[in-house]
């Protein structure tokens, strides 16, 4: 597999009235072509900031983003437009990401008009092709978003994201807002589309079960930093970072025999305004020593494809 996206030392701080929020700190990772990489972590850990930086919806403070070997450079809107033809995003909530006053034809067609200036029959045909891809049809063209269920809306959002035939799709919690019985439809659709179109996914989620189902590799973030990465089955079977262990132990199991296994991590996510000086997880970590509180550990390679940022790996 060839490297499609490469992110190096991405950093984004937000200056607020109360101080500097270190939303993303020195994050590096790659996505190979045809691969699904999951980015997991709790709310406030910087997952979405990474996604928005990749799309240049916000500008990172430092770091490089390369796509197919080419740098993300230039500051003009025109270069951003070119960039967004190659990677696209599906947002979490299809109830707020679709304009209620636009018809489906215009929602899916808008990127085609903006990027290629398509119109008339060519536009309709192209829109229809993308709608068919996600299991919708011509009868839906003239409808408004409110006429669709949550699962169908998410399909429309996926069709819109695919309209410019991107190579990489960023999926920001694409099933979190959907009904339980509908989530499988969307997850299966994503896997079918990936095979058919050769897409790569950056799958952002806090739902570890979903990640296990769809992803090849997983990146675990905690308070703006990456703490562990590796192939999903390896990381989930034997996590090295105590935070990853804690996350896995926090997932309530459906199996009543494992009922007593729920072992929550103590404490809460520290404020990103005032992060602990050393390892951000140290205040909640049972293995933390003095050296953990001194300086944040760096992500160190550990075995093929795996890495963790911990001084006392499990």
């Amino acid at each position, binding site marked *: 597999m060839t490297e499609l996206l490469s992110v190096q030392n991405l950093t984004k701080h937000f200056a607020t009235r109360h101080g500097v929020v270190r939303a993303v700190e020195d994050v590096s990772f790659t996505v190979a072509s045809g691969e699904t990489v999951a980015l997991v972590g*709790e709310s406030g850990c910087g997952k979405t900031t990474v996604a928005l930086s990749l799309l240049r919806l916000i500008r990172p403070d430092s770091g490089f983003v390369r796509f197919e070997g080419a740098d993300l450079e230039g500051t003009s809107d025109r270069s951003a437009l070119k960039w967004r033809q190659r990677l696209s995003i599906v947002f979490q909530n299809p109830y707020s990401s679709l304009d209620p006053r636009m018809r489906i034809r215009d929602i899916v067609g808008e990127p085609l008009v903006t990027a290629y200036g398509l119109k008339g029959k060519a536009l309709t045909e192209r829109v229809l092709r993308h709608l068919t891809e996600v299991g919708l049809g011509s009868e839906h063209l003239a409808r408004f978003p409110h006429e669709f269920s949550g699962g169908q809306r998410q399909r429309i959002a996926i069709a819109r994201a695919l309209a410019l035939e991107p190579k990489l799709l960023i999926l920001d919690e694409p099933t979190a807002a959907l009904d339980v*019985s509908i989530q*499988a439809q969307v997850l299966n659709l994503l896997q079918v589309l990936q095979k058919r179109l050769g897409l790569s996914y950056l799958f952002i989620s806090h739902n570890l079960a979903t990640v296990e189902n769809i992803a090849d590799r997983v990146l675990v973030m905690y308070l703006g930093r990456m703490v562990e990465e590796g192939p999903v089955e390896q990381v989930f079977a034997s996590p090295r970072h105590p935070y990853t262990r804690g996350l896995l132990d926090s997932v309530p199991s459906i199996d009543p025999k494992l009922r007593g296994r729920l*072992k*929550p991590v*103590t404490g809460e*996510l520290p404020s990103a305004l005032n992060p602990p000086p050393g390892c951000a997880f140290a205040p909640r970590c049972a293995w933390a020593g003095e050296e953990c509180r001194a300086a944040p550990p760096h992500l160190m390679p550990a075995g093929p494809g795996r890495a963790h940022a911990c001084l006392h790996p499990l």
Partner: protein
Amino acid sequence: MGVATTAPTGQPGGVFVPQAGNAVMTDNLLEIRDLHVEFPGLERTVKAVRGCTLFVAKGEVMGLVGESGSGKSITALACLGLVPPPGRVTGSIRLDGHEVVGALDADNERLRGGVAAMIFQNPGKALNPFFTIGRQLTDVIVNVRRIQQAAARGIAIAALTEVRIADPDRAMHKYPHQLSGGQLQRVMIAMALACKPKLVIADEPTTALDVTIQAQVIVLLRDLAREHGLTVLFITHDLGVVGSVCDRLAVMYAGRVMESGSVDGLLASPAHPYTASLLRAVPMLGRGRTELMQIPGTVPNMAAPPPGCAFHPRCPSAGPSCASEVPAMRETNGGRSIACHHPLPAPAGSSEDVGTLAS
């Protein structure tokens, strides 16, 4: 092995009376019988609950599972007489011997807090942003338990300690925006417990929380229920949460209970096709990259629910009778009941239910 195959009798969705002599069933704190809740409108009437029958025994943690729009939250609100206008409630809800449906609001008021307390999904919205945590806690305690302000303060601090809020004295002086979501939910739990209720209704109490915080709240609720012998009606859409907290479970779909029984038995061998499909459609940790079973179609529109069994348009084992006849709720074995014309056979010999049946 198999479930009873006798033809369902009685009115569709009619009153289902559990068999006498079942020790779990005889001592019910909450009895919901044939509950209907409708919201009439000019163009359409939304039938949110359509014949829900549910019993919660004293001291048990009962899970009520369903997707959004299945009527689980409205059922919970109806238990406290809190269905908002223009909702029309019919049927019967007996809470601690008191009939809620049709009672005067003043009478139901006495139930709220003292007999049954509710924990809502979003603690940030359930608390008033203008008042301190302490003020809101003591106000509720004074109102419900009719005691002095000073005594209420002591009870409030004790309750905050019990839900493991660090430094409860300081927390009393904080405003809701100064606490995190997990801490606010602990405050809500403290508020519910401080009134010494017999029943706690928890409506998706962990849905708005992060995974690690959700696990903390689940463990807290489980421990508190055990220590105080609380009866809990736990509403959620997450089957994993049910597996971790609940003793028994009722699965709701389109305003009706489809299946109920012990968590162990029901999750191990679901008899209703809806429960079975749901269990295979949800990704679960430890299953790897298995393909998820897709449930076709969408959740029904409750203004025009499908005739017969509401699940039949999406059901893999639906027959002709499913579209015309509403399956009645009937008891099978091991304290389980089901409303289905074509229930799935129990796996031979493997179910824990079989043991209870034989004894």
